[in-house]
């Protein structure tokens, strides 16, 4: 369990989870929809009108790298919760394939699927999904119980994760005796207890108060740092997505609108829908200098200061403004360009400059 603190190198690593052409259609004779191009091309409303079917997930493809926090974001009804359930076939996909460590999950039989769910995947639910008739410790050890571990073993392991999520002292309480935040810690502990490779989160914090939500987000960041699990995180909250996600998949009506890092979504929205979505984000907190560098003007006076391209605009503001001239942005000893007061202030004042994707230097 080596902690992967570094930003995962997506190009080189083998994908842990690979989704290709995934469809989930609800309704009568759902299987025909992905198969027939003329139906597959219909919009959601037209499809419902013509066939009585609803396409919750439409032709999605993406890879999740080991150790990555992969966020799926969208408004309610965008199909994100269906998607996460399709990953372990809690909901049976209509078409497409799911590869986990190279194994085709759609070909797995019920027994193999159970084995995978017992050891490789765990899920945390929006409304916690706890068992009200079991104490905290018995809720946490449920997964160990169904895979047949002995009572002392599961007690020991459950106690470990209860300590890890900060629930020590509450082992013998019942879920109804805990606050919402505490209950979700139980949900988290239950998911961690089986020591899975992939943690799936289905809007885990949207039922919580804002303060508790922030605390729990920090908790997830901490846990990710400590245990280094791969996470697929569903949310409708953009700031949560930006805070947690290494990469973000934005969904709308079951389709992928844009897949990229947080600063890519904010800096280079793929269409007006995404632009609208990210409008209220404080851009200085998300964009890095990479997004605002420009070539030095002729005869421009440059400050002696050098900054890296991945420094957040917010963090660079004071230094650039006090430098008394444009600051060089340097990566690996190579000059990418410069950043002056003007560029910084445009971002900090949150004026939308709509940087063209072409301006992005990488």
């Amino acid at each position, binding site marked *: 369990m080596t902690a992967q603190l570094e930003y995962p190198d997506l190009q080189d690593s083998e994908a842990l989870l690979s989704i290709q052409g995934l469809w989930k259609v609800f309704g009568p004779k759902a299987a025909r929809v992905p198969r027939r191009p003329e139906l597959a091309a219909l919009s959601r409303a037209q499809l419902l009108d013509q066939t009585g079917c609803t396409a919750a997930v439409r032709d999605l493809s993406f890879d999740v790298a080991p150790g990555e926090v992969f966020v799926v974001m969208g408004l309610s009804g965008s199909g994100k919760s269906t998607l996460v*359930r399709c990953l372990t076939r809690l909901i049976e996909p209509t078409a497409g394939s799911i590869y986990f460590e190279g194994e085709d999950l759609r070909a797995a039989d019920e027994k193999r699927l159970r*084995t*995978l*769910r017992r050891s490789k995947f765990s899920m945390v*639910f929006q409304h916690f*999904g706890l*068992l009200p008739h079991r104490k905290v410790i018995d809720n946490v050890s449920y997964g160990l119980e169904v895979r047949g571990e002995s009572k002392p073993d599961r007690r020991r392991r459950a106690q470990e994760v209860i300590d890890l999520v900060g629930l020590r002292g509450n082992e013998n309480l019942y879920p109804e005796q805990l606050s919402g935040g505490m209950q979700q810690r139980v949900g988290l502990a239950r998911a961690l207890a089986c020591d899975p490779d992939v943690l799936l989160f289905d809007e885990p914090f949207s039922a919580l108060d804002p303060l508790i939500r922030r605390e729990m987000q920090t908790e997830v960041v901490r846990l990710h740092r400590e245990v280094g699990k791969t996470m697929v995180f569903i949310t409708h909250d953009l700031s949560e997505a930006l805070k947690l996600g290494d990469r973000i998949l934005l969904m709308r009506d079951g389709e992928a609108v844009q897949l990229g890092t947080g600063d890519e979504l904010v800096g280079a929205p793929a269409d007006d829908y995404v632009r609208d979505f990210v409008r209220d984000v404080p851009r200085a907190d998300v964009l890095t200098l990479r997004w605002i560098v420009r070539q030095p003007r002729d005869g421009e006076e440059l400050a002696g200061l050098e900054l890296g391209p991945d420094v957040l605009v917010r963090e660079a503001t004071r230094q650039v403004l006090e430098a008394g001239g444009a600051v060089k942005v340097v990566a690996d000893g190579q000059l990418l360009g410069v950043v002056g007061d003007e560029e910084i202030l445009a971002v900090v004042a949150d004026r939308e400059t709509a940087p063209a994707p072409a301006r992005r230097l990488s």
Partner: protein
Amino acid sequence: MASITGSVEIEVRRPRRGVIVGVLLVAWVAAWFVLKGINTLALGGQETTGLHRWLTDQRDFLGGGNAFLDAIRVVVDQFVILLQAVIAQPSYGRPVPLIGWLGVVAVSAYLAWAFGNWKVAVLTAAGLTFLGLQGLWQESMDTLSLTIAAVLLALLAGIPLGIWAGLSNRAFKVATLILDLMQTLPTFVYLAPLTLFFAIGPAAATIATLIYAAPPVVRLTAHAIRSVPRESVEAARSLGSSGGQTLMKVLLPMSRSTVVVGINQTIMAALSMVTVAALIDAPGLGQTVLKALQTLDVGVAFNAGLAIVVLAIVLDRVTTAAGDRPWRTASLRRKVLLGAGAVVALVAVWFSRTYVWAADFPTGANIGSKIAVATTDATNWVQDVFGGFTFGVRDAVTKGVLNPLEALLTESPWWLVAVVIVALAALLGSWRGAVPAAVCLGLLVATGVWHDSMVTLASTLLATVVVVAVGIVLGVWTGRNHRADSWLRPILDAGQTMPPFVYLVPFLALFGTSRFTAIAAAVVFAVPVTTKIVADGIRAVPVATVEAANSVGSSTWQVISKVQLPVARRAIALAVNQGLIYVLSMVVVGGLVGAGALGYDVAAGFAQSELYGKGLAAGLAIVLLGVMLDRITQAAARRTRKFKGTARGDNLW
């Protein structure tokens, strides 16, 4: 759009439909004057038709030995006999049951404490001891044995069925359909056909009881399984639970309290049916009530009726308390106390096997005869003092309303009555009402008990009118007034758990044996359910709607008549439907106290073997009347348009 045209249609149609109904009824009365007395299909008390004789022969034929049915009968019989040997009847060469009264009281109280709480344990001990003091220990234990046997068998079949219906959508649909149908059949009618297959006695009584008592537990188990939060099930599956693990560790534990509510309803239904099953020679308290009713001994009937009520209250409270127990596992202190209690209960059992005073309830302490005598005295006093009044009311209603209605129904030619009923059904419920009505009427003619059916129908209609009127008044009152609801509801709940027999006793005291007695008892029997449904409908009217009506200055009466009743009319239609079914089943039981007609035919069929076929046909006629009235009212209810927000009434089906 649809709702606009709909309301216009109703505006135009209503008065016209009323006029047509009026004209139809006037024409009927006119035709009655002319055609009175012809084609009435009257059949004397001892007369039978070919069908009846054929049915009688069938019993002899079936009774001659069908190996499969006999096997079922023997197994059920042995099970009942085993339970009776343990608590009720002298057994294994001993003059007393295996466990005497002290042991039964101790074990029952202990179980009540272990599954419920100490309060219901005290209630159980007191209640059971009271049964003994009434001098009805053995009868009570017979009733309890039959009830336990029927409930255990009902749960054995009902809980797995409920789980199946909870897990499978298709099974759920089929189960709902069948259970709905079973619910519309009056209690009484299960008995007749069953005796055809299982003869009379404890086995037939137990099987009838388990058929009657199983639906609630099936329904509520399915409902409980289906209402387990989806996320809890998904969580269990996402952790790799197999189907069996999900069922045993998640679905069933989380369904527990609702399933216990189902068990409670099943027990109450079983107790009620076991007493009615006295008609087919089931032993126990029902037998005592029945014999007392037949000899018009109100005192003894009251004493035994009281015992049934006490038993009902004890069983109801204990199972309710068991359902309310929280999830928590027992504390160490409670575990120790439970262990000690078990020892005490076992010692009591040992005592009850060793000493006569603990085995046979001491007769010296009998207060039953005192209760009977006091009741008889009180009855005589009431009859002396109020007799003029109550008998006056009875005679006035009988002469003024019941006799004319009955004359109209029984003295008209059968085809005239059939035409009028089908026409009314068509007017109220279009073809959905008319077609079943026509089919049922045709079959009624075929049963050969048309005349008796019309007598029963007259009583049923009169009682239903009263029930609906009282039910709407009480329902509106409790629906609008929380305080009224909070003290009336426990009474209504208690009223619904009483076996129907018990209702007859006080009315017998007040009105003697007559059709009116059965009608009065039926009204009291059916008012609780009607009131509850109306009250729920009134309460389901959106608060904003009522506030809007108040804000434009409506008077209370205007709010009730122009807003609450119209919006709740689906609930009211349902209340009428359920009121009819309850009344019908009670009017039939009333056959025992002089209401005659179908109820009497059925009872006579049980008693006299040559009338068996006629009794069976009369039972069938009751079913047909029930199905017909149910279909017509349901079709009429469907015609009234559904508003948003009144959907709550639907859940009660």
